[in-house]
């Protein structure tokens, strides 16, 4: 199609795209905004009604021609709708883009309907949600097929086919089955890769015949039925073809991540990892000249960031130079620095000085520094203590840092400018392995774990350097405190990083002992064959090693070791390990002491096979990755729920634990409550990076939570809820004498009408703001509730099975 060539085409009508289009419109630039769905801000449209949308980061000023402030979904969408009309933005809905060809000034954008749009420059703001994956059979575009389900209660007495076997498909099918006849189509012969809770629910619904399931079936075509109203879906399965007449087809077969589309446009990525971000200049320009990438796709998941970038990208596309909106924030951060330089110059100096950061593109580096803390601690000041649970990553910009290494000798390792430390806890999620103090003239950049993990997955150079150091330092800490870094490098070169899935066998009893495994993250269960039965004899946490027994005794493996959760180990081959032992007699003694201790433990456990069952049970509950877990002894618990009440009373009216829920074995009950994982699942995808970890291990959520619910979905243990804070309670006397409001331990007014206030994620924070330790444990009258770390499991098991 020939037609006007726009100055700027903007793809994606979310916050970033809208803001870009609004700015282009205000400047009077010819532009078009292409949005694949029928309305603007598709992702926000799908939020539940009345959801409160936050405007984090609060410190960042908004720079956009559209309004945006924290408020309800409706208020925000309404303001944008008005802005769209007022600014006379040229928007085309239902224009799904399938490809972008060319480069500036001649881009050709092809749409799903086969037409094309040409533009001089393109701003890509499509987010990371991706388009729903299509069924891929004739008839997939018929109106009977839908790819989303907003309100399952809208449909009644229909025959509905749900295609897909993931969590979304199951949740939709179960909700629809309440008042419809529902068939769920599963390509496989079981439901795998779904949440435990959903699996149970769907299997039960199928067993109760509330839901039908076609296993090992796939859809081959969809066509209108003879009555002209319904449709016929043809399924191919084991027993041949079957035809199903239905009123509605809902396909929930996931979304195509935008990565492939983006790559087809010619945009380069630094590596193959799914989390890698496209290569961008400091002006959001991708490797394709004239093609700009903004918002979540470029690694900026927050609404305000995306809106600012939309504005800035238009300015950059027009060749203007503007100061980014975050400039004053960086300038404020740089005040502690001893350099009188502008923001850009300071950033350049940092990248030049710190090799691990040199390979990062300036835009990502700017973001990293924006999220980092810059500190100039006084000489001798403690940066972190050994056994702290923090997991940030430090680089030295100026001065020195001293690390206390070795057990008793307190020898010190001095690091200078450009070097880094803190990678051990960053990668393993375990406690700090050594105390670190500032030296003279020390200036540090403390980067939060999330930012560094993003870099590790997108910049190969960063990953390699950090991994090499990790291996060398892990070996140093465990086996060779006296060795020099060069010696270690040689050993580290022969070491291998290995990754195991939950339940994967690391080595099997009776195998040849060819290597030693240092557990870098996760944990393992050690099991032995006792009288033909696999008995778990111990649990080994990250930071320790396994496999020494077979190596020292030069016999085969004496036990089978399995990963309890996703586990990474550094493995040393037998020859290297024996060399280390020969060089270092102290180490030989240490390893032999470990062997003796473990042998004694094995003998004790072999006499109590039931204790092995209890370890297995605890590991099955995912406690292998816990750092602090609430356990209830059911022989003491009177079910008074004082623990839950204490939790609610000390935490804005919502209990973060559910005493009764959760499994029990041998009278040990694991209630639904946060176990503060080593490598917290909840932290994986938090847009405002609101989930933090305190030195004593607790994983907590800060006030800048935007209530998106990602952590709730990512937690495999169901311990995070979305809740609004309940109103304050009246004083005790007011309640006692005048009956004002709810009394102690009673539910607060308003906590059941949670829509009133903004809902945020809440979870156990180990009562960090209460003092005196966890309120649940302190409120237990009978001593049934305790919180322990996994190191104490062996003691617990010994006590319980005695």
């Amino acid at each position, binding site marked *: 199609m020939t037609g006007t060539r726009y100055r700027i085409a903007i793809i994606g009508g979310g916050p970033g795209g809208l803001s870009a289009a609004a700015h282009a419109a205000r400047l009077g630039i010819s532009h078009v905004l292409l949005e694949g769905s029928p309305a603007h801000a598709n992702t926000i449209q799908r939020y539940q009604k009345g959801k409160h949308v936050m405007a984090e980061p609060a410190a960042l000023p908004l720079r956009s021609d559209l309004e945006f402030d924290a408020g309800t979904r409706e208020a925000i969408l309404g303001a944008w709708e008005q802005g769209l009309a007022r600014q006379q933005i040229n928007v085309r809905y239902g224009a799904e883009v399938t490809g972008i060809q060319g480069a500036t000034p001649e881009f050709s954008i092809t749409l799903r309907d086969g037409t094309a749009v040409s533009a001089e420059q393109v701003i890509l703001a499509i987010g990371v949600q991706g388009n729903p994956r299509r069924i891929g059979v004739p008839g997939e575009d018929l109106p009977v097929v839908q790819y989303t389900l907003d309100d399952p209660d809208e449909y009644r007495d229909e025959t509905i086919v749900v295609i897909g076997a993931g969590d979304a498909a199951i949740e939709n099918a179960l909700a629809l089955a309440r008042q419809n006849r529902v068939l769920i189509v599963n390509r496989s012969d079981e439901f795998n890769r779904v949440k435990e809770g959903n699996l149970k629910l769907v299997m039960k619904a199928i067993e109760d015949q509330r839901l039908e399931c076609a296993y090992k079936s796939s859809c081959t075509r969809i066509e209108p039925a003879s009555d002209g109203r319904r449709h016929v879906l043809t399924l191919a399965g084991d027993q041949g073809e079957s035809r199903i007449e239905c009123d509605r087809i809902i396909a929930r077969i996931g979304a195509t991540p935008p990565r492939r589309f983006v790559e087809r446009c010619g945009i380069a990525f630094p590596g193959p990892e799914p989390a890698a971000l496209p290569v961008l200049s400091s002006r959001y320009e991708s490797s394709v000249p004239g093609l700009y990438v903004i918002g979540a796709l470029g690694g900026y998941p927050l609404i305000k960031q995306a809106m600012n970038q939309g504005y800035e990208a238009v300015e950059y596309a027009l060749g203007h130079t503007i100061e980014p909106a975050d400039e004053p924030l960086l300038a404020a951060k740089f005040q502690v620095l001893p350099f009188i330089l502008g923001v850009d110059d300071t950033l350049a100096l940092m990248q030049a000085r710190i090799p691990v950061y040199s390979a990062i593109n300036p835009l990502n580096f700017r973001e990293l520094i924006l999220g980092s803390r810059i500190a100039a601690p006084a000489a001798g000041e403690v940066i972190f203590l050994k056994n702290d649970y923090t997991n940030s990553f430090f680089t030295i910009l100026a001065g020195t840092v001293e690390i206390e290494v070795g057990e008793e000798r307190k020898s010190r390792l001095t690091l200078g400018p450009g070097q880094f430390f803190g990678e051990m806890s960053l990668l393993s999620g375990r406690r700090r392995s050594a105390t670190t103090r500032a030296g003279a003239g020390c200036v540090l950049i403390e980067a939060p774990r999330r930012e560094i993990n993003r870099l590790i997955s997108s910049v190969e150079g960063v990953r390699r350097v950090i991994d090499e150091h990790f291996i060398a330092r892990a070996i140093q800490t465990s086996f060779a405190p006296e060795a020099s870094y060069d010696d270690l490098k040689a050993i580290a070169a022969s070491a291998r990083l290995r990754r195991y899935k939950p339940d994967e066998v690391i080595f099997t009893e009776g195998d040849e002992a060819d290597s030693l495994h240092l557990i870098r993250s996760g944990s393992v269960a050690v099991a032995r064959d006792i009288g033909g039965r696999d008995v778990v004899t111990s649990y080994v946490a990250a930071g320790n090693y396994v496999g020494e027994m077979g190596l020292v005794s030069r016999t085969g493996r004496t036990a089978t070791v399995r990963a309890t959760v996703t586990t990474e180990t550094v493995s040393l081959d037998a020859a290297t390990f024996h060399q280390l032992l020969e060089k270092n007699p102290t180490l030989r003694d240490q390893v032999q002491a470990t062997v003796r201790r473990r042998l004694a433990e094995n003998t004790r456990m072999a006499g109590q096979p039931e204790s092995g069952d209890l370890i297995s049970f605890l590991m099955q509950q995912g406690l292998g990755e816990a750092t602090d877990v609430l356990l209830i*002894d059911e022989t003491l*618990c*009177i079910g008074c729920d004082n623990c839950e009440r204490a939790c609610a009373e000390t935490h804005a009216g919502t209990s973060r634990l559910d005493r009764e829920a959760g499994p029990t074995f041998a009278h040990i009950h694991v209630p639904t409550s946060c176990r503060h994982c080593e490598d917290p699942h909840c932290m994986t995808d938090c847009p405002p990076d609101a989930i933090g970890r305190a030195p004593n291990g607790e994983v907590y959520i800060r006030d800048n939570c935007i209530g998106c619910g990602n952590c709730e979905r990512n937690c495999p243990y169901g311990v995070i809820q979305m809740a609004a804070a309940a109103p304050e309670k009246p004083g005790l006397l007011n309640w006692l004498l005048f009956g004002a409001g709810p009394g102690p331990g009673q539910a607060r007014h308003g906590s059941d009408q949670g829509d009133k206030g903004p809902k945020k994620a809440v979870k156990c924070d180990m009562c960090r703001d209460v003092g005196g330790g966890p309120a649940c444990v302190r*409120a*237990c*009258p009978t001593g049934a509730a305790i919180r322990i770390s996994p190191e104490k499991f062996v003691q617990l098991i010994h006590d319980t099975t005695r």
Partner: protein
Amino acid sequence: MHQSVLAYGRSRYLWAALAVCATAIGAYVLDSPGVPRNGGTWLGYTLGTLGAVLILWLMSFGIRKRAYASQAGTVQGWLSAHIYLGVSLLVVVTLHTGFQVGWNIHTLAYVLLWIVVASGVFGVLVYLRYPRLLSSNRGSQTKDQLLSDLADLDARCLRVTAGMPPEFGEALLANRDRTLLGGTAFALLAGQDRSQILLPVVGGATVLYQALPNPDQSALLDWLGQRLAASSDGGVSRQLQELLGLVGARRTLLGRLRRDAQLKAWLEVWLYVHVPLSFGLLAALIAHVLSVFIYW
């Protein structure tokens, strides 16, 4: 690790309570007031004051338990002290009376004290014994899971009866609707089953249904057994056998639910004596103290 409330802090409050008792008994034995021993002597006042202070402190446990943010020790520590010092109160107050009792407000306070302490001791015994029974009875399931299993069994029963003569559907539906869990306090504590069922009355052209007691599903199981014995239709016999299996499972499940409710009731019922009477004791104590001072 886990520790019983009696063993809390190496039973430090047991030793404290024993020390209080030993001191009180020692002082009582050594004391020779010259008049018959009673609450009005120097030692009598001392013991009385100690007793009154202890009562006030013991009652403040109710406040501490609800002061959820309090950092004044743990609730378990407080309960341990509450138990041991509460029992020691019997010794202190008995010595305070000088073994003089009568039909008056003073003895009323003393009797109330005994009832409160005795109910408390009963509570301790229940707390020590019943949680283990509760846990064993429930297995690894929660009450909600047991209830959902019950609903599940009911649905399966009704699915089986869908293909049978109508009286089976009626009976099983009535069985579901007339099953009682709990009921009166007595039924709850005794674990009684007062469930009923509607079963067809034999004879006559139209089928009439009569309400019958059905403890532990016995009436239904009997009726199903009779029908199975009389059945000559292979299909119906198989369905009856399936029903018998399901109703048997239902009986077990109901038994567990009833036992669960019973144990929980016993864990709570003593508090209905202990707490109100302790307030009664407080009132009697105030009357006792005032009357002693006013009518001195």
